[in-house]
């Protein structure tokens, strides 16, 4: 049983690293046929891995600590009944401080919609999540320098607000209602009665 589990875990790890292993194979072939070029490939890769390993530990430790000490749920609790400037600021902060890829943001957006947060603020949250993450800003500062990172961050801030502002205006009220509909109480009730109806039949 344990062996089976171990085998499954190994298979998963192997699949995750398949691309890397193929690349490693290619690099080794290069090294075999052209030691000069091959050595340069490994030198460049090694230098970059070393750089990454030297700058990333504090960032990830901060992400972990933040996740544990400031849970998302706590922040979201305050979001439902705030609007205007405060709501926008909290939406921005919620997106910027939590960790995760964009597809992980949608379930959080769903919670926000259920709590009645305005669509504009949900779009701001999505924008901040996608491009204003603080851990990534720190990493960008180290990789690409302050001028690059801060200019891009400032532009992202304006862009996130601007895009939400435009969306608020180009999406008509009917479409907005349709977006909100699945996240409202009435919808849940009609769904439930649907299911009950089928059970009766």
């Amino acid at each position: 049983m344990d062996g089976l589990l171990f085998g499954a875990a190994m298979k998963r790890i192997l699949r995750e690293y398949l691309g890397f292993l193929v690349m490693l194979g290619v690099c080794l072939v290069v090294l075999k046929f052209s030691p000069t070029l091959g050595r340069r490939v490994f030198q460049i890769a090694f230098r970059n891995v070393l750089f990454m390993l030297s700058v990333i530990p504090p960032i990830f430790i901060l992400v972990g600590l933040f996740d544990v000490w400031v849970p998302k749920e706590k922040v979201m609790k305050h979001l439902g009944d705030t609007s205007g400037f405060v709501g926008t600021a909290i939406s921005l902060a919620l997106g910027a401080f939590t960790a995760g890829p964009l597809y992980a943001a949608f379930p959080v957006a769903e919670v926000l919609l259920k709590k009645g947060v305005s669509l504009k603020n949900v779009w701001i949250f999505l924008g901040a999540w996608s491009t204003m993450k603080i851990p990534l800003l720190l990493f960008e500062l180290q990789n690409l320098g302050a001028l690059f990172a801060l200019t891009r961050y400032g532009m992202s801030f304006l862009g996130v607000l601007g895009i939400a502002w435009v969306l608020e205006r180009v999406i008509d009220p009917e479409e907005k209602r349709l977006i909100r509909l699945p996240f409202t109480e009435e919808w849940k009730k009609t769904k439930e009665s649907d299911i009950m109806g089928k059970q009766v039949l």
Partner: protein
Amino acid sequence: MSDLSTYLLYAFALAWFFFSLARDRKKTEQALRRAWRSFLGILPPFAFLILLLSLVVVFLPQEAIARFLGEKSGFLGYFIASIVGAVTLIPGFVALPMAKLLLEHGAGVAQMAVFISTLMMVGVVTAPLEARYFRFRATLWRNLLAYFYSFLVGYAVWMAFFLVRR
């Protein structure tokens, strides 16, 4: 500059870590476990892309990278950078070292800013998922707006470097 910010980060992370350890041992362990998991999560694509890019920069001469993604690559460079950014799903922690490596080998800052911005804000692959929450029309609008805005970001970064270099 980057050295200083790295030291500051280490100092800040360590300070918080010891504070956290003193307050709650269990929570601290949990935080470290999460940190380690996040790291393991980006390791496979990072290892793959660093090797791939090392191959690319060794085999493509600097002039070729400059022609396609360099300062003077013009519309073509922006176009390539924006399409690659919009279509691919590369984690930010992998994309930033990638951009650094390309910058060191002939790519332009504006092109890299466009690449990073479209990568983070535009999601062609995630669009179906996004549409499940926000429906088709809003998803299309958001991605289009983000796509075109990314060129403005590239322009701003180019401008910033232009002004500082002068």
